[in-house]
């Protein structure tokens, strides 16, 4: 018998699986669970985009593309960055079309980290950064953001964690799971700390189109920041295209050329049909984005109000499609809260500590669901809290 654990890479064997696995398994085995647990839009990809994919298939355009992606698509992406964040990236050699934002994150971390480097990871945040940092021989150093700052990163919090080993800051805003955004003045403070250092920024802006007050600002647009910033974005959240697996990495050519080598060896090129369809998305779907954003916005307002009325403090998130209510008033841990809720009322939410230790005391609630679905879930959560209080749930 082969002892796989001895033979397989210890770095991978010791990698922790995602913290939500346990709840997923529980929710999966119960009947009639209504979930508020997903991180992907409930909308369908706009029809024109799907239609373009059908056209492309009919024409049989099914070969590889250039490693970095279709030239035409990179041009559209470049235009998109010009008009949306006001930063220019040369379509020729400063943009890679990746397999989802996740691949871009992976490429970036692997291209930047030298073993021993410290990587500052803002938390709570998406689950993939720290494991990849560790895999690269780097040391992930969490920076814990706080509810009283609306989960924004402050200059002070950043300064405290910088050492001479710091190589990179992971800046994931609009944020999953908190829904926090960084306003221009907040980013300016962060930029001021970084100017004159050799610290890079991985700015994960995958939720940039889902910003509800004012326009999204990229740190790359601030003076002297473009040279040190790798911008990650993609089609999944903005255009409801998760399954198409298409992301964007943009950075100065010196960085992109290194990332492209990895992409070339690991991926070759991103899915061709998806790339053609994405051209249509960028050219024709600004209005669809706006409609979806309006819809999310109404649900966001509904949920924030509902949770605050239920006595679960919930700051007003201004981005992404999550609210992040505090559940400490119940006296339960995040995990206990989620477990009791799913067993007693069959509502699935994600414990906040799945996104970093400082998420303890919170739960992530997705509003990528219809209003009627949300209303039913809120009703059940209300019953749950009532029954917790009067002791019928222990």
């Amino acid at each position, binding site marked *: 018998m082969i002892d796989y654990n001895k033979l397989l890479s210890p770095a991978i064997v010791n990698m922790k699986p995602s913290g939500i696995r346990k709840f*997923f398994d529980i929710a999966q085995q119960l009947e009639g669970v209504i979930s508020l647990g997903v991180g992907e839009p409930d909308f369908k990809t706009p029809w024109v985009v799907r239609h373009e994919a059908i056209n492309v298939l009919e024409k049989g355009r099914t070969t590889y593309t250039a490693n970095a992606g279709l030239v035409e698509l990179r041009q559209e992406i470049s235009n998109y960055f010009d008009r949306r964040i006001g930063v220019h990236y040369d379509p020729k050699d400063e943009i890679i079309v990746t397999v989802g934002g996740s691949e871009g994150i992976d490429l970036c971390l692997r291209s930047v980290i030298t073993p021993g480097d410290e990587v500052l990871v803002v938390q709570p945040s998406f689950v993939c950064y720290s494991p990849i940092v560790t895999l690269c021989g780097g040391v992930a150093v969490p920076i814990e953001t706080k509810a009283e700052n609306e989960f924004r990163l402050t200059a002070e919090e950043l300064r405290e964690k910088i050492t001479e080993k710091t190589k990179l800051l992971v800046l994931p805003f609009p944020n999953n799971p908190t829904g926090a955004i960084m306003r221009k003045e907040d980013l300016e403070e962060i930029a001021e700390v970084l100017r004159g250092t050799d610290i890079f920024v991985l700015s994960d802006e995958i939720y940039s189109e889902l910003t509800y007050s004012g326009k999204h600002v990229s740190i790359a647009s601030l003076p002297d920041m473009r040279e040190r910033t790798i911008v990650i974005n993609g089609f999944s959240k903005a255009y409801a295209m998760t399954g198409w697996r298409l992301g964007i990495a943009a950075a100065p050519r010196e960085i992109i050329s290194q990332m492209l080598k990895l992409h070339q060896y690991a991926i070759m090129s991103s899915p061709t049909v998806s790339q053609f369809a994405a051209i249509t998305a960028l050219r024709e779907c600004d209005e669809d984005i706006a409609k979806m954003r309006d819809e999310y916005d109404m649900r966001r*307002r*509904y949920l924030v109000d509902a949770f605050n009325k239920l006595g679960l403090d919930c700051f007003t998130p201004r981005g992404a499609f999550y609210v992040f209510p505090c559940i400490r008033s119940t006296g339960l841990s995040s995990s206990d809260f989620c477990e009791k809720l799913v067993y007693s009322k069959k509502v699935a939410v994600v414990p906040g500590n799945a996104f970093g230790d400082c998420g303890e005391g919170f739960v992530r609630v997705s509003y990528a669901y219809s209003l009627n679905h949300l209303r039913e879930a809120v009703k059940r959560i209300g019953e749950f809290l009532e029954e917790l209080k009067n002791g019928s749930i222990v």
Partner: protein
Amino acid sequence: MEKLLKLLKNNARLTNAELAVMLGKTEAEVAADIDKLEKDGIITGYTAIVDEAVYDPNSVTALIELKVTPQSQSGYDDIAKSIAAYEQVESVRLMSGAYDILVSVTGTNIREVSRFVAENLAAIDAVQSTATHFLLRSYKVNGISVTADENDERGLMFP
């Protein structure tokens, strides 16, 4: 107003308080907006969408196309209004195209609807001909899907 209408068209039972929260307005403002929509005749009523097939599995609905000779004074109006006066008639619409008036009728069984067409509609002097189509199944009514919710193919949880 557009967002308010959209919300109400999807669910007219949302309270003003709920609407206010979602639209970022006060309850009083929402009440005033709704009042104006009603006064301007934009919102003409609120209704429940009933799946008749579930409520009464034997009931039938028919769409009946009528070819009508217009009257010298009133055109189609008088005829349309007299048809609309029947209780079993759910809608009466003047149409462009191959026929003139489209009537929808619901009855407790096919015989009842057939009799209504033969005795009440076809018997009107100005009606030249009728074509009756029985409804087999509804998928969407008034912009609302009435089939069981599409399966959410997304996983229950995803980071």
